[in-house]
């Protein structure tokens, strides 16, 4: 140290004043500023943490299921434990992870940013929604881990009402409570999109992610109450003796299934639609090109949400429902595939003549399209009545909906998290590790679930902990794939958390993407924008000629 330095210090030269960061992460640091926050970005992070915990729990259950199925004779877990495990896995993954996954984390964070609003329409309701979610889901978790529920996540009567010897009442109550959280979020998003758009933000200037969130919210608002009432009737029958479905008195257990699937099929689109929205953002950003057929994609989201309500009976072809109803539902299911196909073709056309960067989010996007398409076309097979007679309730169905729910929702969720991570945290993650994880995810996923298609066509019924030995090779293969999949989940958790401290600073727009959320700082200030935006540009206005590298 040179003497001049010491003299300078001794002269009490004031240290340069650094403005404390005023972004939403740092503006207040107390615990109560987090748990009583009404800031949609912080609530999004609260949700992110909660659903990650549930995802871990659900994955552990899945891992134990795959472990058990390595041997055909059910020696690893007893029937009761196995049944409780897959019920736990189903309930957690559907209601505590997939339904809130993209809408409540990325959606909460991005919706106001993307339409240029300061917050969602009802910030307090938004926080209430998180509390309701946490209370309901923790209660259900407690019940399912300490007591156990062995009805499957579908709670079919009369197994759930009379015969199951487990804690159905409490679990059903918890799921009803979590339903209110979905309703509040959906309500909030719908009203926000209608009423809080920035000046100039017309409907056709909204990002496609917002369109898909709107369609998702529509489903949440219109479908969740029917689940609530179905479960209330179940609760009344089991807990209070107010039987409505009881076959011993002439009640119809199929009616419960009608009510249940009126919710539970549309809710599949709650899982997929936000994923499709994320895809539209990723593909345009990494093709550096305006999306092909904006209006078709936008309206196809609404189309899926609406037609999705007409198809629930394709879960019920062989349960004694009238064959004419079966044919009606089958036809509607063929129709609902149309808007999904539109999207896929339009994304392919978007890539054409773009300037494509194969960064981590784009890798997730590409694998998303592959997995979603496989899941989608096998869905068409399942919608074909007679074919469903063979593969219904087999591993074919299991593989199909995992291609949709994991392949489409989880991959989109991870892709979206990677894409917006710099915006959320202001940091960049390690790109090489990101790419490795994306590849692992794709291969691990296919290795886990493709064999299940074969198993299903071979005739292995689902929810079997004991199975004929000739199915073992494919089961072992599937379990091996599951370990790879587990690694692909753990990697991002590690390097994303690592990046919080050691990641490079991201800057406002590391991907050179378009959209209002990239015009503000990373992380955004508490009220999202330093100057409230006025929108006078079209969505995805990428330059017509790709930038020179």
């Amino acid at each position: 140290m040179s003497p001049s330095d010491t003299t300078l210090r001794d002269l009490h030269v004031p240290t340069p004043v650094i403005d404390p960061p005023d972004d939403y992460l740092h503006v207040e640091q107390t615990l109560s500023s987090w748990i009583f926050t009404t800031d949609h970005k912080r609530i999004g992070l609260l949700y992110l943490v909660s659903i990650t915990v549930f995802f871990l729990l659900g994955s552990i259950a899945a891992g134990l299921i795959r472990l058990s199925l390595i041997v055909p004779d059910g020696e690893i877990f007893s029937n009761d434990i196995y049944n409780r495990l897959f019920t736990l896995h189903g309930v957690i993954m559907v209601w505590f992870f997939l339904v809130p996954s993209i809408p409540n984390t990325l959606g909460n964070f991005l919706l106001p940013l993307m339409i240029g609003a300061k917050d969602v329409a009802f910030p307090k309701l938004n926080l209430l929604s998180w509390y309701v979610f946490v209370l309901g889901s923790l209660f259900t978790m407690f019940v399912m881990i300490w007591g156990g529920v062995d009805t499957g996540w579908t709670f079919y009567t009369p197994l759930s009402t009379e015969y199951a010897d487990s804690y159905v009442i409490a679990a059903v109550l918890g799921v009803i409570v979590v339903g209110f959280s979905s309703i509040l979020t959906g309500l909030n998003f719908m009203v926000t999109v209608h009423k809080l758009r920035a000046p100039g933000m017309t409907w056709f200037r909204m990002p496609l992610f917002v369109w898909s969130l709107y369609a998702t919210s529509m489903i949440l608002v219109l479908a969740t109450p029917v689940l609530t009432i179905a479960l209330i009737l179940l609760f009344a029958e089991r807990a209070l003796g107010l039987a409505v479905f009881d076959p011993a008195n002439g009640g119809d257990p199929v009616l419960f299934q009608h009510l249940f699937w009126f919710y539970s099929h549309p809710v599949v689109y709650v899982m997929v639609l936000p994923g499709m929205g994320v895809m539209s953002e990723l593909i345009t950003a990494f093709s550096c090109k305006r999306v092909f057929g904006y209006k078709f994609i936008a309206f196809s989201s609404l189309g899926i949400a609406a037609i999705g309500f007409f198809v629930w009976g394709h879960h019920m072809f062989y349960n004694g429902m009238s064959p004419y109803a079966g044919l009606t539902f089958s036809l509607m299911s063929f129709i609902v595939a149309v808007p999904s196909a539109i999207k896929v073709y339009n994304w392919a056309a978007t890539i054409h003549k773009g300037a494509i960067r194969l960064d981590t989010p784009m890798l997730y996007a590409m694998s998303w399209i592959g997995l979603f398409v496989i899941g989608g076309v096998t869905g068409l097979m399942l919608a074909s009545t007679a074919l469903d007679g063979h593969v219904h309730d087999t591993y074919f169905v299991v593989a199909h909906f995992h291609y949709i729910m994991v392949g489409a929702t989880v991959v989109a969720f991870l892709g979206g998290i990677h894409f917006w991570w710099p915006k959320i945290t202001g940091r960049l993650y390690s790109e090489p590790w990101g790419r490795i994880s994306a590849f692992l995810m794709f291969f691990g996923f296919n290795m886990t679930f493709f064999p299940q298609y074969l198993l299903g066509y071979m005739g292995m019924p689902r929810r079997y902990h004991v199975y004929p030995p000739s199915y073992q090779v494919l089961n072992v293969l599937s379990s091996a794939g599951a370990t790879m999949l587990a690694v692909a989940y753990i990697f991002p958790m590690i390097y994303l958390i690592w990046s919080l401290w050691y990641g490079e600073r991201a800057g406002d727009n590391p991907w050179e993407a378009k959209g209002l959320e990239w015009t503000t700082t990373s992380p955004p200030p508490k009220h999202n924008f330093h100057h409230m935006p006025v929108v006078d540009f079209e969505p995805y206005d990428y330059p017509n000629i790709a930038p020179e590298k």
Partner: protein
Amino acid sequence: MDAKLKRRLRTPFLTMLALLVLLGANVLLGSLFTTGHAWIAEVLIATVMVATVIVVAMEAHKEPPVIRLFSGVGFFWVAILFALTMVDYTTR
């Protein structure tokens, strides 16, 4: 009670009268006919009552288009639920 208030209360009052009359008609039908096709008239009267509440009492007619849309669109979904469920039960 001043004139202004009186003028404003005319619609609610007439709404109440209309609803009571409709209810009276329905009760009459219900107490006179226990079988037959009186149910068609009864359902129609109930539908008119519901429409009156939504349009007049809840002032949907004064609202911006989006709220008018929301006040009606729910019935479309109710119709889906009813129609497709009944496809099953009427053709079994």
